[in-house]
C-alpha cells in the first residue's frame, strides 16, 4: 500500500508523517496512544469513535487518516487541558450521564460540537444531534440533562464574560 504524506493538527499539535493510504483514522489515532477514541460498530452508526474534524463530528472508523489532511482534529484527550474539564465533561460527571463509559468520549465530542454550533439547543435539537451516538447503559435521559446543563452553564459564562458567543443568543 503506497503511503500518503499527511499534514494534520491533532489536539493543537501539528503532525507531519507518512501513513499508508488505507489507514483508518481510528487506527491512526489509537496507534498514537489516543485510545480514548473507541471502536465499536465499525459501520458509522454507534458514534463511539466520534472525533471532531474542523469542529464537526466524524466517525473515525469510516474515515481515512488521509482525509484529515490539512484539517484540525480533536479527540477526547484534547478537551482536558490545564484549565481542567470542560463544562460538558463536568456536566456528564455531575449528572451521572455514563455508566460503562465506552460511548462517553464519542458522546462528549458530539455534544461539544453541538454546543459550538448551537449555544442554546432545545431538547429536540439535542436528541437530533446526538441520535448517532448509541449508549447501552444509561437510557439517555441523563445525557440529555447533562447537555442541557452544560449549555446553560456555557451561556451563563459567556454572558458574564461578554464572550464571542453572546451575539448568537441575541434575538
Amino acid at each position, binding site marked *: 500500500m503506497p503511503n500518503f504524506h499527511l499534514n494534520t493538527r491533532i489536539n493543537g499539535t501539528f503532525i507531519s508523517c507518512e501513513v499508508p493510504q488505507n489507514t483508518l483514522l481510528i487506527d491512526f489515532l489509537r496507534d498514537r496512544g489516543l*485510545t480514548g477514541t473507541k471502536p465499536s460498530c465499525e*459501520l458509522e452508526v454507534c458514534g463511539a469513535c466520534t472525533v471532531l474534524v474542523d469542529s464537526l463530528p466524524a466517525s473515525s472508523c469510516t474515515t481515512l487518516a488521509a482525509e484529515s489532511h490539512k484539517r484540525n482534529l480533536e479527540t*477526547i484527550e484534547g478537551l482536558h487541558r490545564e484549565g481542567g474539564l470542560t463544562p460538558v465533561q463536568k456536566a456528564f*460527571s455531575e449528572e451521572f450521564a*455514563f455508566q*460503562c463509559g*465506552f460511548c462517553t468520549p464519542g458522546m462528549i465530542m458530539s455534544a461539544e460540537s453541538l454546543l459550538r454550533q448551537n449555544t442554546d439547543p432545545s431538547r429536540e435539537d439535542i436528541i437530533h444531534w446526538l441520535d*448517532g451516538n448509541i449508549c447501552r447503559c444509561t437510557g439517555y435521559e441523563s445525557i440529555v440533562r447533562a447537555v442541557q446543563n452544560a449549555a446553560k452553564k456555557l451561556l451563563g459564562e459567556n454572558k458574564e464574560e461578554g464572550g464571542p458567543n453572546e451575539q448568537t443568543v441575541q434575538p
Partner: protein
Amino acid sequence: MSKPFNRRNEPFSVAGHSVPRKDSFAKVSGKATYAIDVSLPRMAHAAVVRSEYPHAVINSIDTKQAEDAPGVLVVATAHDFPKLNLRFGHIIRDHQILALERTLYQGEPVALVVAETRQQAFHAAKLVEVEADELESVTDGRTALSEENSVVLHPDAGDEEPNSSFVEFQGNIPAHVNNICAQMDVSWGDIDEQFSNADVVVESEYDYPMIYGYAMEPYCAVADYHGDRIDVWTTTQHPYSVREDLARVFELPMSDISVQVPYVGGAYGSKAHAKIEPLAVLGSLISGRPVKIVLSIEESILTTRADSANIKAKSAFSSDGTLLARDFDIVLNSGAYTDNSPLVTNKIAHRCFGPYRIPALRVRARSAFTNTVSASSLRGFGAPQGVYAGESQMDEAAEKLGIDPIELRNKNLVGSGDEILPDKRPLETDLKQNMDLLISQLNADNTYDSAAQFRGAEQRLVGTGFALSASDAGSHPSSVAVVRLHIDGSATGMISSTELGQGRTTALAQIIAEELGVPYDFVAIADPDTSTTPYERATGASRTTALVGRALQKACDDVRRRIRSYAKDVFNVSEDDVTDLPAGVSVAGNSYSYGTIIDQWFGAGGEAIGVGEIRQAGDLEQLPPFWEIGTSGVNVEIDSETGQLTISKLATVGDVGFAINPAMTESQDAGAAMMGLGIAMHEELLYSDGHLVNPNVVDYRVPHMSDLPLSTHQVLVERQDGVGPYGSKGAGEGALNPMSAAVTNAVSNAVGRRTYALPLTPERIWRAIHSK
C-alpha cells in the same frame, strides 16, 4: 422514607448519598483503560477463521495461502494442539475452542491466524480455505426436540460430566440426548383438578426472539502464555470463572493464572464466564508472543446471544378472578453449546409465573441445542422471556374475566413474608404498594406534546400497560473481600467484582467509607486480578452491592478489630479500654487516628489488613439471597395508519431496599428500562437457512436517543428490607424484566387486540389493528 442510622448509630455520612462516581474523571476524560486498550511489548494480533456452514463435517483446512500472507506468524487449527483437550465450559465442558471434526453453527471458529497487525491477521484469515461436507441443520428449538427431527448436535453426549462445583444449576442435564441441553421442572398442587374447576381458562403461545446484548466494547482479550504461567487481560464479568476454564484447558495450577479485568465497556450478562480468552491463550501458546484478539461486532454476535423462547402458557381462574393454576411449557433455543443456558432454563422456570398465590403450578422448561450461535446469560436471565408470557396472560385473563388488570393482580399477589417457591426465601416486600406507586406515576400529569401529527382522534390510539416480576437473584453467595488500611488513614478495597459500568467501584467505596468512618475520597477499590484480588463468585444477578458489600463490611469489622488489638499493645491496656471512633479508636478517653495506631505498633511504616467473606450460612443460608422485584409500565400512542408506536410515558418503581447511591441506582433502572424497550420494540436476531442474516447494529437495531420516551418517571422505594448493607438489595435487572409484557399490554390496550410475538414493530402492530 427513613434512612436513619448506620451500624454505629450515627447518621449516614457517605452511604445513601449520591456522591460522584469514582470513575467520573477517567471516563469523561478518555483516560479510562479497557481491555481493548491494553498493549504489551512484542504483542501480535489474532483473527478468527469461522465456519460458513450451519452444520458440517470438516474434511480439510488449507492454511498454506494464509501462512504465506504478509505479516503472518502462524495459522493454527485444532489439530495443532494434540496434547490439549480443547473444550471449555463452566457447566458442561462441551464447547470446542476451535472446531475439530464438525462445526455446529455458522460462525464457529475453525482456525486462528496470528500476525504482526490486526489488519494482516484479518486479511490472512480470509485466505484460509475450509473444505467441508454440509449436514442437515436445525435452527428452531421445538423442531430440534421433536420426534421427526433427525439432526443431533451432540451424538457423543454423556462424554462430559456436569461440573459438580457449579451449584447454581438445580435442574437436570440429561446427558445431551435428543438435543436437550437442560431441563427444569417445577410443580405443586393438583393441576388437572384446578383446571377442571376453573370458570375461565386462558391459553396462548408466546414467542420471545433471540436477543443480542450489544455491549459496546466487543469481546477482546490479550493473552501472554509463558509455559508455566498465563497472564490475561480481558473484558469479562467473571475473572475467576475464566481462570477455572483456563486452568482446566491448559493444565496449570490456578495460582499460575492471572486474569485481569480493567474497566469493562458494558456487559449486561453477555460477558459472563469464558468467551474468547481460551482462543487468545492458544494464539500466544502457538506463536510464542503476547497475542491480542479484538472481535468485530459481527463476530461478537456470533459468539453469544440470549436464549429465545417459545412458551405455551395456560392459566385457570374462578369467575371472581382468583388464580387457580398456571401451566407453562417452555422451550428455549440455546444454540450449539451448553454455555450458561442450563441456568437460564433454571431461572425461567422460577420466574415465569409471577409473585402470585397459585394453588397448582406446572412448569416444564427445556433448553434445546440448535445449529445457531450459543446462547447464554443476558440481563434478567430467563425473566424477560418468562414474564413476557406470564404477565401478557394476566392481562388477557383480566379482559376475559371483565376485571381491571390492577384489581386482578391485587387479588392474587402474595403478601410480605410469603413464599412463592417452596423452601426458598420469602418475599420481603410490599408488591401492592409498588404497584400502586407505579399506577399513580402512569396516571399523573399526562400532558405532553404528541410525537406525531394525527389527522384525527380515530388515527391516534392511546393505551396504558404494566407488568410485574419477581426474580430469585443474587446467585450463590461466595465472596471474599480484603480491606487494606494504610498509615495515612486511607483504605483500599480488594475484591474481584468487575466494574461493568454498574458502579461497583463507587458503591463499594461508599460502604467502606461508611464503615471505617473515613472520607469517601480516602477509599479506593483495586482492579480485579486473580493473582492478587480475592475470590469472587460472580458479578451478575444484581448481587455486587448487597453481597460483596456484606463481605466488605466484615472485612472492615476485621480491620477495626486489628486496630483495637494494636492499640491494646501500644498502650498496654485491656481490650475493654479501647473503643471504636469514626476514623480511629478511643483509648482511656483519648482519641487516636488509625495512622497513629499503625505507626506506633509497627514502629516504622506498616498497614492493617482485614478479611471478610460471605457464604451460604447465617442469614444467607436460605436462597435466593434476595428477590429482585420488577414493576414497570408505559403509556403509549399508536398511529393506526402506520402502526408506529411511541412511548409517551415510561414509569419504573425500583424496590431496592436502600439506595447506597440514589443517582446511580436510578441510572441502573433507567438503563434497564431502555434496554427493555429496545427488546419490546425493535430487537430480533434472524436466521434464514441456518445463516444469521442481521449480525450488525444497522440491521439489528438497538435504542437510539430518539427512542426516548416523551416522559420518564422513576421512583425508588427504600424499605431497608434486604440482606445487603443497611437493608439494601440488588438492582439493575428489575426494570427490564417486565418491560416486554408491559409494552405488549399497553399496545393491546390501545388497539383492542393482543399480540403474541416480539418485537412490536409497526408492521406487527398494524396487522393487529387490521386483522379481523
